[in-house]
């Protein structure tokens, strides 16, 4: 790993970005679409990254980058407290003090997330993964019942509304 650190450092930011997406199992076509570049450009970047890292495949290059970054982050974290200036440390300490106790258990804190509304849906997925097959089927049956109740309530409400409108319109004017 130590031998490759210089090579990894030599990668451009765009090459790193593409390799991270490859590590997330995205295909060349998908990467091109997400980054608004052509497939040929993606191919050029991955080819250059492979050449710089001296590996045969893009997957190997992605794996190498991910491993390098995973090893590099804790080292940075250890040095971080020493390098924090009072201007940065004070607001950070204040933010940590106001955080709930279980906040750290929920995972790493991300900076201002524009898609914070998705948190609920993201948090459901790990819970579903903890269920066994029987619990999954039970949940599906419960969801089916809930959907029926919602649909019946919606139809009853709609029918009542139409009935009320019809009654109002068919009323003869007084006098």
């Amino acid at each position, binding site marked *: 790993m130590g031998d490759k650190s210089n090579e990894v450092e030599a990668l451009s930011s765009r090459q790193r970005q593409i390799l991270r997406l490859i590590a997330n199992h995205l295909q060349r076509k998908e990467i091109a679409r997400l980054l608004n570049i052509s497939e040929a450009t993606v191919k050029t970047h991955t080819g250059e990254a492979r050449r710089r890292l001296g590996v045969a495949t893009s997957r190997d290059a992605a794996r190498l980058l991910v491993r390098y970054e995973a090893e590099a982050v804790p080292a940075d974290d250890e040095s971080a407290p020493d390098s924090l200036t009072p201007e940065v440390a004070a607001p950070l300490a204040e933010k940590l003090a106001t955080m709930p106790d279980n906040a750290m258990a929920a995972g790493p804190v991300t900076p201002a997330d524009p898609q914070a509304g*998705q948190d609920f849906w993201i948090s459901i997925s790990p819970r579903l993964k903890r269920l066994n097959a029987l619990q999954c089927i039970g949940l599906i049956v419960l969801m089916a019942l809930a959907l029926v109740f919602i649909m019946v309530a919606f139809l009853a409400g709609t029918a009542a509304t139409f009935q009320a409108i019809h009654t109002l319109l068919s009323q003869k004017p007084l006098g």
Partner: protein
Amino acid sequence: MTEDMTPLMIAHQIWRFGGHIAALVCCTWAFWRGGVHERTAAGLIAAGWLLSALLTSRTGHGPGIYVISIDVIILLAFFALAVWSRKLWTFFLAACMLNSVLSHFTEHLIHFERFSYVTAIGFWGGWATLICLATGVNGHIRQQKCQAATALPA
């Protein structure tokens, strides 16, 4: 369309042919932009849709045993997909299909009005499953965009 068609019949035709168009659009979108789970669901829906259209009984006594069998097989496949993928939309997909299959059996037990039966089947087995699939594809696209955002250089 003939002149003697009632508004209810016109609505039914819109419901029916609109469903075919929506199925085509949703399945194409899922194959084009979706992940492996979305494509699997789209394949199952497309196969079920085509087979149901081909094997529907024209005798006027409901869709027939072949369509009910297809729906049951698709339901089992959706159950498997939900257990495999553990994505919320696949659970809703299986739940909607379960309601569709239950509508078949309920009709055989209670014999409710034919138009209500066809509408219930069309809604749960058709429109609702397509909504679930579209939600799944949309979620997959958003997830990929999030991945791209987190992969951005600092």
